[in-house]
């Protein structure tokens, strides 16, 4: 069956051409997957607002824009030199991994000495050097892929790969910077894979940004595997320009006693849709999901999360908050599934949004599906303005109303900031949130 959106969709014919343009450095692991994904793509359609999960987010502008896959020839590291700030979290000592338009940049990356068997850097490189490990995990969280996931699989060129073997605690964090450069009209498809084996620990801070105000499309997939007793912190900052589109997919699978702290901050972009999917596939898992979104003008941010309590005795804690101004729109879809045998599940979900204007809007939809009987699940959503009583309390102490407002916003953002353990990063995120709000 031919689908209307698909005919608008310009990628397919470009595939062969794109492969050619990718130079010789084309990766065989991805080739097989890419072709399979393209095959599947032809059989399914892209989501429309008629799909329940996409009711509030219309992706047709992305499809109609006719973005073409980015290639390595689109930019030059030499001209980028002046523009890039690889020291993104300035003052943070970290293994720095830099990607330009989804391609690993050896020149801008700075990966320090690593413990034995640890791998940090390019997924493509890893697939050549340690193919067995990559193959064991690559794509394993992706079942029933939607069209965007297949699209990533079809056109991805590279992405962040982090592999922490059993019992290794990675002292320095990983800082992954994804920058779009000379990306007008391009589709960038980063594919990230994080593996923390049993009893290992890793902290990863990622950042997506643009070197200029061009219209492009980022379609990313991040897979995170946390084995038994692993401890993972993963923070993603979405700071791309306000012409850009983003569909971000994050899929996680956690095993017994894993500890996860996941953060996502969306501070800009024309339209961003984040699909986050966490499978708690073990007992005694503790997983925290923190989200913060700031949108102004007519921007649109959609966070759809799905926490699957597949085993008993786990704790999930999900706190998504946002601030909307002007005519900005946000969506929060929070699905929690507690399967039949997942007794003693403790699932907490909260979505709070502050609307700073009458025309800003949030559609929030919690969706709890509980099939076990001995569980504790709480969820709540609030939408409102800044607390007037609190404002008066602060102002009555001599503090100006602007300062009082920003104090309350800061207080509001604290649920997101407080769990960030590294002070340098916390400070950076704090400043970003404020700069964005005050802009």
């Amino acid at each position, binding site marked *: 069956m031919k689908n209307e959106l698909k005919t608008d969709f310009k990628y397919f014919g470009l595939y062969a051409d794109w492969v050619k343009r990718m130079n010789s450095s084309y990766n065989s692991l991805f080739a097989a997957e890419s072709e399979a994904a393209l095959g599947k793509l032809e059989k399914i359609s892209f989501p429309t607002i008629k799909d329940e999960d996409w009711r509030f987010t219309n992706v047709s502008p992305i499809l109609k824009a006719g973005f073409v896959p980015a290639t390595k020839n689109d930019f030059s590291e030499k001209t980028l030199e002046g523009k890039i700030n690889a020291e993104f979290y300035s003052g943070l000592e970290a293994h720095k991994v830099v990607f330009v338009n989804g391609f690993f940049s050896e020149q801008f990356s700075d990966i320090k000495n690593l413990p034995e068997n640890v791998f940090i850097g390019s997924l493509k490189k890893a697939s050549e050097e340690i193919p067995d490990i990559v193959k064991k995990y690559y794509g394993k969280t992706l079942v029933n892929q939607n069209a965007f996931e297949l699209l990533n699989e079809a056109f991805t060129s590279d992405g962040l790969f982090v592999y922490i073997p059993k019992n290794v605690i990675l002292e320095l964090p990983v800082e992954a910077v994804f920058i779009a450069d000379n990306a007008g009209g391009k589709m960038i498809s980063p594919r990230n894979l994080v593996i923390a084996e049993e009893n290992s620990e890793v902290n990863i801070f990622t950042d997506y940004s643009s070197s200029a105000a061009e219209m492009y499309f980022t379609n990313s997939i991040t897979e995170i595997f946390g084995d038994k007793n692993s401890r993972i912190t993963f923070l993603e900052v979405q700071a791309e320009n306000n012409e850009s589109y983003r569909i971000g997919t994050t899929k996680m699978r956690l095993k017994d006693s894993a500890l996860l702290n996941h953060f996502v901050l969306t501070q800009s972009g024309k339209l961003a849709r984040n699909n986050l999917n966490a499978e708690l596939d073990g007992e005694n898992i503790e997983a925290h999901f923190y989200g913060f979104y700031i949108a102004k003008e007519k921007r649109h941010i959609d966070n759809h999360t799905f926490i699957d309590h597949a085993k008993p005795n786990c704790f999930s804690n999900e706190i998504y908050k946002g601030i909307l101004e002007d005519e900005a729109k946000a969506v929060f879809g929070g699905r929690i599934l507690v399967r039949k045998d997942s007794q003693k599940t403790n699932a907490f979900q909260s979505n709070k949004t502050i609307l700073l204007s009458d025309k800003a809007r949030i559609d929030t939809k919690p969706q709890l599906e509980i099939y076990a009987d001995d569980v504790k699940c709480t969820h709540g959503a609030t939408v409102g303005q800044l*607390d*007037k*009583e*609190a404002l*008066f*309390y*602060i*102002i*009555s*102490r*001599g*503090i*100006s*109303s602007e*300062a009082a407002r920003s*104090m*309350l916003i*800061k*207080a*509001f*953002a*604290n*649920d997101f900031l*407080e769990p960030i353990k590294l002070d340098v990063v916390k400070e950076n995120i704090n400043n970003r949130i404020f700069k964005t709000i005050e802009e």
Partner: protein
Amino acid sequence: MITIKNLHAKVAGNEILKGLNLQVNAGEVHAIMGPNGSGKSTLANVLAGNEAYEVTEGEVIFNGKNLLELAPEERACEGIFLAFQYPVEIPGVTNSTFLKTAIDSIRKYRNEPEISAKEFLALIREKAALLDMDNKLISRAVNEGFSGGEKKRNEILQLLMLNPKLAILDETDSGLDIDALKIVSKGVNHFRSPENATIVVTHYQRLLDYIVPDFVHVLYKGKIIKSGGKELALELEEKGYDWLKTDEVEAV
């Protein structure tokens, strides 16, 4: 210090203050008593500039300035301080950040330099010790998870830190046990000086054993219907308000 003339104010469309007059001079402590709902908190909020309360008539002169024309933060900078009946919790803002910001705002208004971190710390430690407050409360979020007593004590800590000219204490005694009451009173008495003034709003005489007022006023249905010395509080304690209510009816 402050002169209130024929003050009328509305809340949510209802007239609550109906022609209130009050004169408070430097060095004085005035107690305002009255049954629940008589308008005591309304008066306190109107003086502090809460926008939820609309002044419809009258004037308030504070140290020569027309108070009603000033924004709430300007009033605070001019030296008005309200200890809230229900202090607000502000999660995410620590007591020390809050107070330092407030002190610096007030200093800026007066063209004075900011308080140094060192000076601030010494000051807050001193005042907290005076109020028997745990130092931990200083670094906690403003009023968040504080007990009723801790919140009231925190109001007095703010009073001592900001050192205003006119302190308005709205039911600072409610919900306090006798030990906490003594500590809070100690704080207020420490604040008292010939240069400042205090309005103590309460509906129990108890507090006035510790903060001895120079004048006692009875506020009823939005007006001051009787004024006297500190003995009036004892009389109210003994006889309640009913005898006054009949007086008022007769007077009308």
